[in-house]
């Protein structure tokens, strides 16, 4: 337990300090959101209607951007080999790393959502709906993305491949995240149905992600 806690604390500390790059994700999120009105035009009602989708896309791309760092840095300085060889089960270590990554890179995205919602003319209900779905949905993005990150780190030149492999797997999360936020804003569906499916997706990825990532790390590293 202490080993996992130490791992989580270390990962968060690395991510938040210089060169960690976790907060770059928020900056990227902001940039994507700011780009949208330039592409769509400054039509506020239209932006309010597209708002949840824009925020979800931005969060998805931002979390994809930071995923690359989940294992690469540890692989480069050799600590990944120590984690693989350590006494802690690799599945748990992967889960701990993903949790730390989510705390350092995912939570800032959710915290930034209200400010970005303001830019997109979303009202309080809409913003809180998007923030709530992001809170429930981003763990699924992190834990499925971890599989791709583990595959990419064993490939040596898998950076671009990571996006190709992870994005199809994250489509269900995107669908139900946007569906739940839309339902909260305009109806006619109830918020509960897509929201509980989103929770289910997160729970499934919580189970599948660490095992798949640990398997590919174990097989891929020599």
């Amino acid at each position: 337990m202490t080993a996992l806690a130490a791992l989580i604390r270390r990962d968060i500390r690395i991510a938040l300090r210089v060169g960690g790059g976790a907060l770059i994700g928020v900056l990227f999120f902001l940039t994507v959101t700011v780009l949208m009105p330039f592409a769509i035009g400054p039509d506020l009602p239209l932006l309010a209607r597209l708002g949840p989708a824009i925020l979800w896309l931005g969060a998805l791309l931002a979390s994809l951007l930071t995923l690359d760092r989940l294992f690469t840095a540890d692989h480069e300085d050799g600590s990944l080999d120590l984690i693989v060889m350590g006494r802690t089960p690799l599945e748990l270590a992967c889960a701990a790393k993903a949790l730390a990554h989510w705390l350092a890179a995912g939570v800032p995205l959710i915290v930034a959502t209200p400010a970005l919602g303001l830019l997109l003319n979303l009202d309080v209900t809409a913003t809180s709906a998007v923030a709530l779905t992001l809170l429930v949905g981003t763990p699924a993005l992190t834990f499925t993305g971890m599989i791709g990150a583990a595959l990419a780190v064993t490939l040596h030149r898998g950076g671009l491949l990571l996006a190709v492999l992870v994005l199809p797997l994250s489509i269900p999360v995107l669908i139900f995240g946007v569906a739940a936020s839309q339902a909260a804003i305009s109806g006619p569906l109830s918020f509960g149905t897509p929201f509980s499916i989103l929770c289910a997706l997160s729970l499934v990825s919580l189970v599948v992600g660490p095992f798949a990532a640990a398997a590919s790390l174990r097989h891929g590293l020599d």
Partner: protein
Amino acid sequence: MTLIDLANPTKFLSLTARVLPWLAGATAILLLIGLYQAATAPDDYQQGATVKIMFIHVPNAWLSMFVWGVMSIAALGTLVWRHPLADVAAKAAAPIGAAFTFLALVTGALWGRPMWGTYWEWDARLTSVLILFLMYLGLMALWRAVDDPSRAARAAAVLTLVGALNLPIIKFSVDWWNTLHQPASVMRMGGTSLDKAFLIPLLVMAVGFSLLFVTLHIAAMRNEILRRRVRSLQMMQASQQAA
């Protein structure tokens, strides 16, 4: 004759060399019968002659999912039993599965144009099959990204098993979301809703296409084994020259 006997690539090559012509012949005969029956099948009272696209479209769609299932079993063979030919089977199946998925999408679009008035609709079934196609392409890219075949095999096996979670979503997408694509009509609770005049040619075509997959798959596996032999011969030659 068990699965273990096939583990020896030489035995596999000699056995499949004998089986392959028969398989190819049976495929050709079944597809010919199926195409004849499909061509002579009556027109649908609603859809007219365009219903005949079904005899190509449905087997392709079935196989697009079936091939991923075969690859998932092969992935288990790679990761759990370490069967030496499992990764060859998985690698050989991916492009064939991608081709079936592509054909299902194209024939679906051609069928959708006269029936629904559109080539493409962002409907649950269509979208999930498109995602399946993207996953096939990603898997093929992953196979090519690694030089060492056995390492590529294990990475691809993990991804195949994760992707297999998508299969039930595709299968039941038409039942869960009530969208443009019609719900399942052949394999469903309470028996088929299809008339015999359509069902028999469809089943013949389905078996024919399945045999086509088996034939192509075995042929591709033979190619892959031979390709690996050439590769190891080249490696041996290179190391001899170096020494």
